[in-house]
């Protein structure tokens, strides 16, 4: 499948001019509020009529203002998950789930199982928690048998524990690789965890569009992600669980020891390492409390406007980002091509940054 979007639209005080193409998998539209990401996803769904543009999903033209084509919303076959759920309050969970899908009970069973909805079926939406309601909303959209799933900040209205409750379900949905997903968010953690392709939006324009792992590891984009949220993704594999509570992972450039990762040995994981949590050393450090030392080669240095420098380190076939001060970079004489050691505290990696997700490439 592929998605091709070309949109022009203006509101008073805001102009959107966006063009991007995305392969199958999970495409995340990332941007801060006011970047135009919601406008884009609504235009793809047909809930908003842009001034001009073209939207093509799987070679099917859904919108072409030149050719005067605009497929009506009900016939676009795009499942839409709204930020606020929008379950039908007068129907039970079961009736909500089957609203678009009346006959195929096998599909219902599969979705109920995937999203853990088994004991909610006879309840009314008013009796669900926010997280449960959002899981039902995702299931309802999936059961409409969509060619693509549109998710408009599905976690934004939930508090942290509810988010943590839903993310594993989203991981499963995304890594199953069945239905392609267009996902809108302003949370870098969700990008890191779910995205295979990333479209960065800023002020109504596409800043960059490309494979998520590549863009996440690009030092130039760190300010756009937010300096405290930026971090590269590593693929790792669970090797063993140690009796002291640490899980040993095999990562490019070395072993990682992280606190209790609840996955079976052999499972592939993607881990986001925040740039601000990485310490660099020119020589292999000894006598440190930090357990994780990855050896790599400096592949890029990017100086921002402030006192910081972002260093990109090639480890194995992948990349790490480290954000250090310019003073340190100069004192250490860092330059591309040098061998360098990245040091990471085990406890720095949050559970939310460890996903069972799809392979990065």
């Amino acid at each position: 499948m592929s998605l091709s979007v070309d949109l022009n639209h203006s509101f008073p005080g805001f102009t959107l001019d966006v063009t991007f193409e995305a392969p199958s998998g999970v495409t995340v539209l990332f941007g801060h509020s006011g970047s135009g990401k919601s406008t884009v996803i609504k235009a793809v769904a047909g809930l908003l009529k842009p001034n001009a543009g073209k939207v093509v999903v799987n070679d099917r033209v859904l919108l072409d203002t030149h050719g005067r084509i605009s497929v009506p919303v009900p016939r676009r076959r795009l499942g839409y998950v709204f930020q606020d759920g929008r379950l039908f309050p007068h129907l039970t969970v079961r009736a909500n789930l089957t609203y678009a899908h009346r006959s195929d009970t096998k599909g219902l069973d599969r979705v109920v199982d995937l999203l853990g909805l088994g004991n909610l079926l006879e309840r009314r939406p008013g009796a669900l928690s926010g997280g449960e309601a959002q899981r039902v909303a995702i299931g309802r959209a999936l059961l409409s048998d969509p060619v693509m799933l549109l998710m408009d900040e599905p976690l934004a209205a939930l508090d942290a524990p509810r988010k943590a409750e839903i993310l594993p379900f989203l991981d499963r949905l995304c890594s199953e690789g069945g239905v392609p997903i267009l996902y809108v968010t302003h949370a870098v953690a969700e990008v890191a965890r779910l995205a295979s392709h990333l479209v960065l939006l800023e002020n109504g324009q596409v800043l960059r569009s490309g494979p998520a792992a590549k863009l996440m590891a690009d030092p130039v984009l760190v300010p756009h992600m937010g300096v405290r949220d930026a971090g590269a993704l590593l693929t790792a594999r669970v090797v063993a669980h140690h009796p002291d509570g640490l899980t040993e992972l095999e990562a490019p450039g070395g072993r990682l020891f992280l606190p209790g990762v609840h996955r079976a040995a052999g499972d592939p994981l993607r881990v986001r390492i925040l740039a601000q949590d990485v310490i660099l050393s020119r020589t292999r450090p000894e006598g440190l409390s930090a357990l994780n030392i990855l050896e790599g080669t400096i592949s890029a240095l990017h100086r921002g406007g402030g006192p910081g420098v972002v260093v990109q380190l090639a480890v194995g076939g992948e990349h790490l980002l480290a954000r250090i001060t310019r003073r340190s970079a100069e004192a250490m004489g860092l330059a591309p091509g040098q061998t360098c050691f990245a040091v990471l505290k085990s406890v720095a990696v949050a559970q939310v940054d460890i996903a069972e997700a799809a392979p990065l490439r």
Partner: protein
Amino acid sequence: MAFLGPDEWQAVALSLKVACLAVAASLPFGLAVAMLLARGRFPGRQILNGIVHLPLILPPVVTGYVLLLGFGRRGPIGEFLENTFGVVLAFRWTGAALAAAIMAFPLMVRAMRLAIETVDPGLEEAAATLGASRLRVFLTVTLPLILPGVLAGAILAFAKAMGEFGATITFVSNIPGETRTVPSAIYAFLQVPGGEASALRLVIVSVVIAMAALLVSEVMARRVAARVAGR
């Protein structure tokens, strides 16, 4: 009915018949107009709103006279109806139903419109993304959510139609057995010596019907709120 004499009973039965026809015939129009006013964005929406509410503000005699001008046997609409369908409304019980329907219309539309406005349009949007046509969205999402409001509107309109006097007597007069509804009968009883007892009994019937209608429509309105909240 031992409580009511034959003349009184005739008036009550006629009023019930008139009010039932008035509500049944105007319900689809009321729902359509309420949907237009609540959801529609078109030029002239305020004018439509004004026309719908006009009978509430105008003296009922004026409404009745306008009906007589339009729907009387020499009126343009009345003549057309008689020549084309053989239907005569002036001085008939069906005419009384028309007058009652028009006088009750603002109340009916208002109750339905309030119910429609409590429904989040986002739910209708969500149904559309799930592949539902406009008709299916209305039948499966909007209508079930507003159903108690629709019933409340119908009940209020029924009570109003039972009690309509000014427009009715102007348009279709006060003919026993044909257009003498409860209010007309009360008026007529008060014109003859010794009619007070009959008038009083009809007053009691009117009060009971009006109170019951108000109570039922209140309960219905509360059920709309509960449904929309998903309990």
